[in-house]
């Protein structure tokens, strides 16, 4: 009886698996993945990068865009250094892709971890993410002026939570400090999700999280957006002013891209590029981007590599001026 049910269940599993794997993907081309594809995420669980990577995993499987499953792996240690180093070690591997953040350029600039991003294969930039200044909904702060006054009054004890030191959140914080001549105590956490939780729990006083990371709590009325660091107001927060319109030139983007290791076969690079192009066209992705205030502006190939190198040069200056 036991053995029989065991046998049936194994047969069931095998049948189910072959249904998935057998159903052929719709992508043309001579190269197909031979085993599950590892999707390395440069940040911890629950953050913006993590959410996008897991959304893509789900769309790829739901729409049957690939013949193999995608396995997301978080390697958020050391501001993404862990992930970068891992990708370097996967040289020539055709089954690893990485979801990047801006720490893709800032981390190798800040520390010598033996990684040159020019060596990696760019696949696709899916979107540009935005930054918003958030406080707990219980706080009295309603405007940017209130915020600056409160931080100044705290005399350096104002706790700004964010991702790892030297990553995007800390750069936006540094820009705020420079513009207004204020000082924060910057507390690094492992990912935007943890930062969001700590803001709601009042363990930190403010964050510059991406809208996607804070959306759930915002809808529940637990947090308040103060100002957006974008050129124009965001569609989802029509009442939240931009720093720019208040006369402060603070605009910062987070790119959401995918890259592959050095030496990945060209056929595989083409395969993944095409995969991401198909992804970009799906309705789920378009809806997600709109709801989470992402700018879905796709570029691929050498254009993306130029963008990376250009951004690296820009960040070199930002880092030099902020440290």
């Amino acid at each position, binding site marked *: *009886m*036991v053995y029989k*049910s*065991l046998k049936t*269940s194994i047969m*069931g*599993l095998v049948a*189910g*698996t072959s249904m*998935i794997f057998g159903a052929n993907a719709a992508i043309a081309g001579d190269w197909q993945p031979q085993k599950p594809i590892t999707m390395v995420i440069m940040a911890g*669980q*629950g953050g913006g990068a*993590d959410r996008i990577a*897991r*959304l893509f*995993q*789900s769309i790829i*499987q*739901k729409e049957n865009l690939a013949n193999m*499953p995608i*396995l*997301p792996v*978080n390697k958020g*240690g*050391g*501001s993404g*250094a*862990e992930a970068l*180093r*891992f990708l*370097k*070690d996967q040289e020539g591997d055709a089954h690893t892709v990485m979801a990047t953040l801006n720490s893709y350029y800032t*981390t190798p600039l*800040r*520390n010598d*971890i*033996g990684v040159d991003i020019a060596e990696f294969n760019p696949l696709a930039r899916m979107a540009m993410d935005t930054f918003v200044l958030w406080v707990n909904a219980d706080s009295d702060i309603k405007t940017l002026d209130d915020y600056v006054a409160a931080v100044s009054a705290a005399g350096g004890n104002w706790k700004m939570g964010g991702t*790892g*030191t*030297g990553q995007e959140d800390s750069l936006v914080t540094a820009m705020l400090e420079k513009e207004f001549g204020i000082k924060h*105590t910057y*507390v*690094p956490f*492992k990912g935007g*999700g*943890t930062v*969001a*939780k*700590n803001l*709601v*729990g*009042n*363990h930190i006083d403010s964050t510059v999280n991406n809208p996607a990371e804070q*959306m*759930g*709590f915002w*809808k*529940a009325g*637990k947090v308040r957006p103060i100002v957006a660091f974008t050129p124009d107001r965001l569609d989802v927060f029509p009442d939240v002013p931009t720093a720019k319109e208040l006369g402060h030139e603070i605009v910062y983007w987070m790119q959401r891209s995918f890259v592959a290791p050095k030496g990945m076969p060209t056929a595989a690079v083409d395969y993944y590029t095409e995969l991401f192009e198909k992804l970009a066209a799906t309705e*789920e992705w378009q809806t997600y981007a709109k709801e989470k205030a992402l700018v879905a502006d796709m570029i691929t190939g050498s254009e993306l590599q130029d963008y990376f190198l250009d951004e690296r040069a820009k960040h070199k200056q930002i880092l030099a001026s902020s440290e």
Partner: protein
Amino acid sequence: MDLLTLLSDGFATSLSPFNLMIVILGVTAGLFIGAMPGLGSVNGVAIVLPLTFIVPPASAIILLAAIYYGAMYGGAISSILLGIPGASTAVATTFDGRPMAQKGEAALALIAAAFASFVGGTVAVILFTLFAVPLADVALAFGPAEEFALVLLAFTTFVGLGGDDILKTIIMICLGLVLSTVGLDLISGQPRLIFGDLPGFYSGVSFLVLAIGVYGIGEVLYTIETSKSNPTVSNAKITFKDVISGLKTMRRYTKTMSLGSFLGFFVGMLPAAGATPASLMAYGLAKQTSKKPETFGKGNIEGVVAPETANNAASTGSLLPMLTLGIPGSPTTALLLGGMVMWGLMPGPMLFIDQPDFVWGLISSLYTANVAAVLINIALIPLFVWALRMPFSVLCAIVLVLCIVGGFAPNQKMHDVWLIVVFGFAGYFLRKADYPLAPLVLALVLGPLMEKSFRQTLIAEQGNIFAFIERPLSATFIFLSLLFFIWPIVGLLRKSKQEHPHFSSKRPNFSRQNS
């Protein structure tokens, strides 16, 4: 009453014949995945996630929950039979589970583990059903300072783990903490202790590699040496009557199980902690409240019951922050979160309001999965025990293969396999010299958590060390950990006074060993 209506609607879905079949399938697959060292609920859920698209979403949730539970039950099996914890949550189960198996009580240990898991899981699901929404606020109250205090509390349970030799325990904790600092520092991003520039060490020393090395390889080496004259085959027979009488004895451990369930649920609910500290704290607590603490570590059944109740309760508890806050407490819940995003659900504060059907369907499937898991587990115990009757020469080779494959599979790096070999030999010599291995492995698991929260608190509080005792929650935990630290020492001192002749007769023994 609203609650009951919602829950019964959930049950209507989860008890349909098709979904029941899915539960049985999922639990069985989960059990085997969990029983393999190196594979855990993470792998199980990851493998099955794509399958969830060929069934309706409600059945998909049920399948994932069934695998999750099955793997949690399965983790205890390799801990008891082979002495290799399949996941960090099952480390505490080896302390007494393995000695029981060596005494020929493997079947009883497995029954106890299965039943305790059932009780822990069920109590936790009931707590979850009743208090999920208000408890989310408790999870929010936990900042870095509270996290640190909680991990410190988990550390104090180590004091009792290493037996009477506190010095050796402390040495092993320190060694584990040193290993836990290997890799990239979270706060500054600088690599630490990477032995020159070995890239393999950038991601640190993983728990799995160390546990497989010292427990798996180390144990095999030790057994080869000790059994060369008379290769022992465990006397492992089991009949239906044994199962019934085993279940009957479980009644005696009501206190241990209720302690483990509540402790496990509350600790598991906190986003940072999870099931490993929960199972340890339950073990420590069971030992310290026991009338015969000296029998722990030598095959006391309560030493299996306590951690198994707690780790199952904790894995249910860890679903709470995932559902109510959108923050996964463990890698497995992160995958479940990914699954929910796939079905167009957004975990977070609004989920319980926007998607009550989904939430209650999931909760009711946890009840179903739990019942199915305990029944299937008990039904399969004869099969697991039968594995122990293999000749040692065969079993030993199988264990070695499992160790190497299990160590290689998660990251597919040869670096990890070499580390396993090194840790294996180190584990063998440490065991010969009578050093406890559990504190080493557990310090590696908890060390990074403790260091991170300690530094975050100090940064946030401008270096004010008193921040930890200025906040009521963390102050309570710190006070409790001091109490737990002092309690066994006081007990030891009192005992050594009373049994002075006993103590002095032990002494020459020690010095002979050391010289």
